[in-house]
């Protein structure tokens, strides 16, 4: 009913519009034409002015940097300095930032002496309050890269005591970073003292002063490292050092908690290393297989190509549970999907061992079948080409042995890789290659079952 009424209304309005367009027009506000600007004189568009000249200068700098022409970049940069007077804070990256970044780059790449670089950095610190801490950090990295630890420490302490007006949130974070790096250097001193003590300890001689100093470093380092890892972020180096400190003083609970937090707190960005550190810690602590496996499971989800996947696979293969063993097969197959693993004999032997086991037992062929089905159209070219057979044979006999076994099982005795390697092996009168040939020939029907269409004849 309502909709009907509305329609009628609409029609009525339309009728009215038809009848009196003048009245309708009167309802609309009159159209105000915008002010017409005078046509720009075209010559002005091409007029070279300060701004355009400096823009061109900047693009020359960028070109020179890309071509590693440091001197040329330096030439243009000195001319670019004039644009400092147009340095408005509202610009995203102002000229002073450009000069800082590019200048640093030039100094860094042209193997300048530290004297000049230090001077440049000191001057840069005066160029902008907002950037002060950032410049300090950059300077410190450079000092550390050059092995000037003491200078770096001095600079860090100086930066730490710097205050300007009210601290902003960003400055707060930058300050924490500065403190963390200072803490890192404290850790470095601590570990040096520790080594001295350990050496002395072997001589059966203890030095109280050194020990006290060492504890002092520990306290300083621990306080600032603890602060930074509370903030969500990637703090691998800080976490590692902090855990090392805690472990040394036997505070395993705290260490475990820190690592757990670092790995599992969802506020932190996903970070494979967090899980690696946790796993390594748990391993050191002699935790149960179950705990270790669950730590590595997450790492596998994030980085299936991680080097720890071999450990993971080994652990899973040994497991009594069928489900875990199956997962082991998945893990090793997934790792070998990555080019980085292509020539890793260890990984191939893991796979070969598990495949052989399954073939001999005659159980769970469907596991292989399932893994293989998504790989059978690209693995032959990726792993089992004749070219690779030749190369692997020449470079690494045991790698070619493991691969040939897998190839023989998955692709049958006629596969190029297997044929070439077993032929070469027999020619060289190597016993295990003859055994391999026999094994594959005996189990050739398996290949048909694996590569065939999914059928119910394969028993679980």
């Amino acid at each position, binding site marked *: 009913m309502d909709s009907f009424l509305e329609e009628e209304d609409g029609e009525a309005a339309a009728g009215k519009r038809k009848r009196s367009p003048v009245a309708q027009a009167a309802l609309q506000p009159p159209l105000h034409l915008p002010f017409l600007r005078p*046509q720009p*004189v075209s010559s002005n568009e091409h007029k*070279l002015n300060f*701004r355009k000249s400096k823009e061109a200068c900047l693009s*020359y700098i960028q070109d020179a940097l890309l071509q590693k022409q440091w001197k040329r970049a330096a030439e243009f940069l000195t001319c670019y300095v*004039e644009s*400092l*007077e147009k340095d408005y804070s509202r610009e995203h990256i102002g000229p002073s930032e450009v000069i800082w970044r590019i200048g640093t780059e030039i100094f860094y790449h042209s193997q300048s*002496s530290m004297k*000049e670089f230090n001077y440049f950095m000191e001057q840069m610190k005066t160029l902008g309050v907002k950037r002060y801490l950032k410049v300090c950090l950059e300077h410190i990295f450079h000092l550390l890269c050059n092995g000037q630890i003491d200078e770096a420490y001095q600079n860090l302490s100086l930066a730490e005591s710097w205050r300007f007006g009210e601290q902003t949130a960003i400055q707060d974070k930058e300050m924490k970073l500065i403190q963390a790096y200072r803490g890192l250097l404290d850790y470095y001193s601590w570990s040096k003292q520790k080594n001295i003590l350990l050496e002395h300890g072997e001589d059966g001689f203890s030095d109280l002063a050194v020990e006290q100093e060492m504890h002092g470093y520990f306290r300083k380092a621990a306080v600032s490292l603890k602060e930074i890892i509370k903030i969500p972020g990637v703090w691998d180096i800080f976490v590692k050092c902090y855990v090392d400190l805690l472990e040394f003083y036997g505070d395993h609970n705290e260490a475990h908690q820190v690592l757990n937090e670092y790995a599992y707190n969802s506020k932190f960005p996903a970070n494979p290393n967090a899980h690696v550190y946790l796993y390594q810690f748990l391993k050191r602590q002699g935790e149960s297989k179950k705990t270790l496996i669950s730590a590595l499971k997450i790492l596998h989800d994030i980085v299936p190509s991680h080097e720890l996947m071999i450990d993971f696979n080994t652990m899973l293969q040994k497991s009594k549970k069928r489900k875990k063993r199956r997962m082991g097969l998945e893990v090793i197959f997934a790792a070998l999907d990555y080019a980085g693993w292509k020539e890793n004999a260890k990984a191939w032997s893991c796979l070969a061992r598990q495949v052989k086991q399954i073939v001999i037992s005659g159980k769970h062929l469907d596991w292989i079948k399932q893994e293989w089905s998504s790989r059978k159209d690209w693995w032959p070219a990726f792993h089992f080409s004749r070219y690779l057979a030749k190369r692997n044979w020449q470079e690494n006999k045991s790698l070619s042995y493991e691969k040939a076994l897998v190839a023989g099982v998955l692709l049958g005795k006629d596969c190029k890789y297997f044929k070439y390697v077993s032929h070469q092996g027999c020619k060289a009168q190597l016993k295990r290659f003859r055994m391999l040939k026999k094994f594959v020939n005996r189990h050739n029907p398996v290949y048909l079952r694996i590569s065939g269409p999914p059928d119910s004849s394969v028993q679980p």
Partner: protein
Amino acid sequence: CRGEDAGRDFNERCAQCSEVNWGLTDGGRFYCRSCHNVTERSREVVNTDFITNSRVQTISKGSRKQEKKDGGCEWYICEGFQLVLKKQVEALEALGVCPQMKDEILCNFWRCYLQKSKQAYCERPAGETVKALSVCESSTDVDSDPERPSLLHLLSLSESEGALQTDCSFASSVSKVSESTSVCSGSVDGSLYLMKNQKEKLRMTMPMTLSFCYMALLWVREPITLSELLRFVVEGHIPYLNVFEHFPENMRLCGLDLKIFCVESWPVYEEVFNKMHELAAFLDLPRFPDITESCFLHPDMLCMKYLMEANLPDELHNWTCRVVKKTGIGEVDFLTLMPGNKSTRKVKYDVLAAAVIIVVLKLLFLLDDRYEWLLSGIAEERNKNNTEGGPYFEFKKWYEVVKHSLDVEQKKLDEERAKYLWRCEKPLFYSVKNKSKVLKRRLFWYLILLYLFQNQFGKLSGSVQRAEKPNPSSFQLSWSEENTDGSCFHGHSLKGILQEKHGLLTAMNPDYWLCTVKLCNEKLCGHLAHYREVEFPQSYHFVLGLFSFLLRIQPSYIHDEVCMIEHKLFNKKLSKKIKYNRVLRK
């Protein structure tokens, strides 16, 4: 102050220390250099010396404050411009223009301008009525005064002349607002100058100083074209960008003065050209001296210069002269400037000559991306068999040689532009409180980087440009016949592309294409024609680009001129065609 020498002809002893050692103050009075006693006597003779301050002598009531607190003296904007002009004309003299130009021509133009714009040499100078609006002293109540536009508004004024772009950029980023409210000018009438709507009076601007120079050069028929003048400016032979470097110590520039005198862009041909014509009309100047065939600015002469510079055969000059004659653009009445005459088109001598050459190239080579290469092939064949006499001109070879040089020079120029240092090293005064903090910082940084990088890399090129200016040259590309590498085409012969007809040499090329069939109305749309690169053959574009580089103006301006000449050349044929079309339509 200025006028040191002028004090010498005043021989009375000083009433205080009885020395005879007089100097002249800015107020035109004598002061004792020994005891700084200022006499009541002022100089009465109108000094003919261009340097001394004409304004002061005629309008100042003698009560000028001698010195401000900070040691700067009072000065007016027009005095600043006078100084700029003086520096510029002195630089021109150093370049070799006739010495009369300064005192007899430019000086008179300037006086005439001051008088016409009611700034001096008149009963009641315009500035006097609202005299001495010293913004420095009254800056606190400026914003509350509704009668006066606020200084913030002044600073954001956009100059139609385009040259006074120095915005409030001199303020540092930290405290921009507070600074711009406390802005002041070192000159007496800086704020007034920017505030007044002086449309009817033709306000002086920095580009206008060049218009003055060009007008004087044209009056004495000096062999300098406008494009050359502007190139000399850019190359630093004529003071312009940082001309205030030359202001005396006590003429302090700050705030609004910088908006007037500190230029942030290079002068533009069109702007200087148009202002010159406006100026000539404003000053009611009579007809300029005739541009005859013997003048440098006559197209026949300029064509010769540009043919050489473009590395084209000398023989082409014969053809350019014929085109000039046929089109009537060599006539005295066409070439000579008649100020205020709106019916005649204003002549850009340099652009005109370049356009004549392009028209000749089109007549002979067609430049349609096909015919010129065809001719070049024929010439190449003939050159193989030709043993005696100069070689035939090959368009292809010429293109390769010139294109190469042009690319190299263009690249060099682009880099120079990017490396250009816009600021002088002399500190400027932005405001009394915050003396040139920003500018000092810039200079400081320049030196620091220079020092560091030079330690790092050894001497840097380009960073010392101020010290070593290249000598001014009227040629940007030079080709010498002494070079044996065959890169000079001046002596090449056009025989290959000409044929004899009834005892006359004519072009083999039977066709011609017009750049445009119908010209636009220049007064309405600003252009005679419209140039779009894609619509024209590459060869034509190349030739335009070549002259655009030589004259440092946009190709479209040369294109306009080419169209104009073509229409004069084909006038009869065109009008016939139009008539024929009309008949057909009926």
